[in-house]
């Protein structure tokens, strides 16, 4: 029973990650795309946790959905200010 629930949860999270990835590619606003890419790595980290790889999940959550989003936003604000 428990493994079945885990599999269903894993499938739902995988589909959500796919949706976020498509948003990240096709959305016209860059800021939305950055947030969507952060959400992709958040979903990936939950998937890693479900597949019992907590080490990889921690790395993905800290770097993928935390730091890289901050760095992208920093670069984006820099570009916008230089264009003005």
């Amino acid at each position, binding site marked *: 029973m428990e493994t079945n629930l885990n599999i269903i949860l894993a499938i739902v999270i995988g589909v959500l990650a796919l949706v976020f990835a498509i948003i990240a590619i096709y959305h016209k606003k860059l800021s939305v795309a950055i947030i969507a890419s952060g959400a992709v790595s958040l979903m990936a980290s939950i998937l890693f946790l479900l597949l019992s790889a907590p*080490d990889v999940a*921690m*790395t993905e959550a*800290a*770097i993928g959905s935390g*730091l890289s989003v*901050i760095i992208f936003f920093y*670069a984006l604000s*820099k570009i916008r200010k*230089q264009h003005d």
Partner: protein
Amino acid sequence: MIKKLTFLALIAGFGYMLWTGLAKYNAAESLNRISSYYAQDGLEEVGAANLVTAVVVTYRGLDTLGEVSILFLTASILGFFLVSGKGPKIPLQDSSEILKTASKLLEPIILLFGIYVFINGHLTPGGGFQGGAILASALILAYLANPKEGINKSIFRITESISGVVFILIGILGIVLAGGFLDNRIIPVGSIGDLISAGIIPIIYIFVGMKVGAELTSIVTNLKHSPKNNVE
């Protein structure tokens, strides 16, 4: 039209390739030779309660060194290109009092958590990379909360260089005193599960954590200071 058709054909071919791979796939019933060696003898040989750490730091320590040096290369290339760029001076706005106070409250907690993660890397899930990333997020929070304060960038450069050199020196010490490069049995392994155990692994992880934290922070500080921001 032709472009789209070729695109569709490419996607179909790619899907077919993936499908054939998936159809032949069946999960391995038993571990292969290397994995079973790690699973059976790794615990006694390395003495780390978290077997992933044993594989990452000792058996595949050279790969970890490669990852750390790739990160170093990225940080230094970013610094090189961003510092030489020219641009208009951007006026900075001071952040609010609430954010400053809250960041002062939060930074020590986050720093402590990062240090916990990389010191306990051989016992619980975690390790140098994760702990370093958490350290870097605390430092970045400090910068974002106080945008007008200057940054002493040389601290990060010095920390990073010293930790990298110590990492490689420990590896060479492994050749001299024990079985090979990055062998962890330089100092006695100790009993499995203690904080001071698993030989040299905790010390290596402390330096990896400091190095990763310094590198990730220096990427953001370079972005912040790039176009003559602090050069009046």
